[in-house]
């Protein structure tokens, strides 16, 4: 069964229709890259799936169960919404780290707040919190920042901040991790360190959706590629199909500009 299935997603801002019936699905452990020129709706698609924007039509399924249906009238409770939200992790283009917290504090904040709601929290407080800290340190180590755990975001380079934000998303153990152009806010010499982290996650079979302009990277790391233009999925397939041998004129035009 598909881990994620997006069906006929529509989104309009006022009169402009930004997503015009976008559908795709992906399997557990797959890596899906979304390519497309500026304004084609990639960010809007991620934001709709991640509940940052309310789609005006369509459905989203995770492991076969519907977590979003635009036609549904009922409003899920905040607790249900949060549970649905936590299926996903999202890495922002602009990191959005919390400036008043150190790298480690950024990573442990949400897990600690979540743990405080556990029934056994009072009894095992020490143990639970130290597990969270340990897990966070492991994640920071995994993105190569164990030494920077005590640094504030303003004391980190852009690439380091982005790696902290990846660790922060991973700390909640999402089923699917979304990246919205994780390297576009970075100097070119810093993109490599992010792409390495994503490759490392890929080797551990993390399910990921990556919006990117790094065509070569997408070709290397992805199982599947979607090319979007004007709010629709123009072409979909393996990297060999979409990048190596595009069938559509619009895909070819885009790729020739990018490569």
């Amino acid at each position, binding site marked *: 069964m598909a881990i994620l299935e997006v069906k006929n997603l529509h989104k309009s801002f006022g009169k402009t229709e930004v997503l015009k019936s976008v559908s795709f699905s992906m399997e557990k452990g797959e890596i899906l890259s979304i390519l497309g020129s500026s304004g084609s709706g990639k960010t809007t698609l991620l934001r709709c799936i991640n509940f*940052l924007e309310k789609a005006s039509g369509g459905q989203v399924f995770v492991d076969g169960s519907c977590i979003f249906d635009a036609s549904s009238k009922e409003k899920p409770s905040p607790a249900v919404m949060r549970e649905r939200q936590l299926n996903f992790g999202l890495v*922002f283009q602009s990191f959005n780290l919390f400036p008043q917290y150190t790298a480690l504090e950024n990573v442990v904040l949400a897990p600690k707040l979540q743990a405080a709601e556990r029934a056994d929290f009072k009894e095992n407080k020490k143990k639970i919190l130290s597990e969270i800290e340990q897990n966070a340190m492991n994640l920071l180590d995994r993105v190569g920042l164990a030494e920077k755990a005590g640094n504030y975001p303003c004391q980190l380079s852009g690439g380091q901040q982005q790696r902290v934000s990846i660790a922060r998303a991973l700390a909640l153990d999402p089923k699917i991790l979304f990246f919205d152009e994780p390297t576009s806010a970075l100097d070119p010499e810093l993109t490599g360190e992010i792409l390495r982290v994503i490759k490392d996650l890929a080797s551990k079979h993390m399910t990921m959706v990556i919006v990117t302009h790094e065509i070569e990277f997408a070709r290397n790391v992805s199982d599947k590629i979607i090319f979007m233009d004007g709010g629709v999925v123009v072409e979909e397939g393996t990297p060999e199909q979409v990048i190596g041998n595009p069938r559509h004129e619009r895909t070819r035009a885009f790729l020739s500009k990018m490569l």
Partner: protein
Amino acid sequence: MDKFIEVFNSLTSGFGLNCIIFLSTLVLAIPLGLIVAFGSMSEFKPLKWLTKTFVWIIRGTPLMLQIFVVFYAPGLLFEIPMRSRLTAVIIAFVINYAAYFSEIYRGGIESIPVGQYEAGQVLGLTKKQVFSKIVLFQVIKRIVPPMGNEIITLVKDTSLARAIAVAEIIMQAERFTKEGLILPLFSTGLYFLVVNGLLTLLFGYIEKRLNYYKG
């Protein structure tokens, strides 16, 4: 020497009133300002416009006028005269400063990038947690400098109480000018300078403590 003690005593007792006005205004206007700020950011349009109009009127008219209105209007319009002049002054100050503080709060809250809220949401934080764990501290850091300025202005504004004959320090000193003494008047400045000097140090210290991160 006797004269010196007489002057000192009346100035100090006058300044006691300034301090009472200052402290009451601070204690009441700081929370009230927050309520006004939430009103002016409300999604409910009528409340939002009502609050904005209120803030506009309060900030657009002299505090002196507001003191007169609070003191005289109840008696002249509704025949329930204000019994205490000091209370009237404090009410006028609290309303006035709540309006100013609310604008500082609003500016602080609205200056927090939407990405901070979104990052909190995707991490599964509740709205309340986003505010208390992420936004609040950043807002405080941003509003401390303008609040410091406003609070120093408040210290000086307390002398406006003399408009309705509340015997604050400058009114006390003015009495002595009729006896040909100018020094008492000069001395009142010292009281204000000392208090504002201390406040400047305090706010400098708070700002420094909050400056452990940039942004």
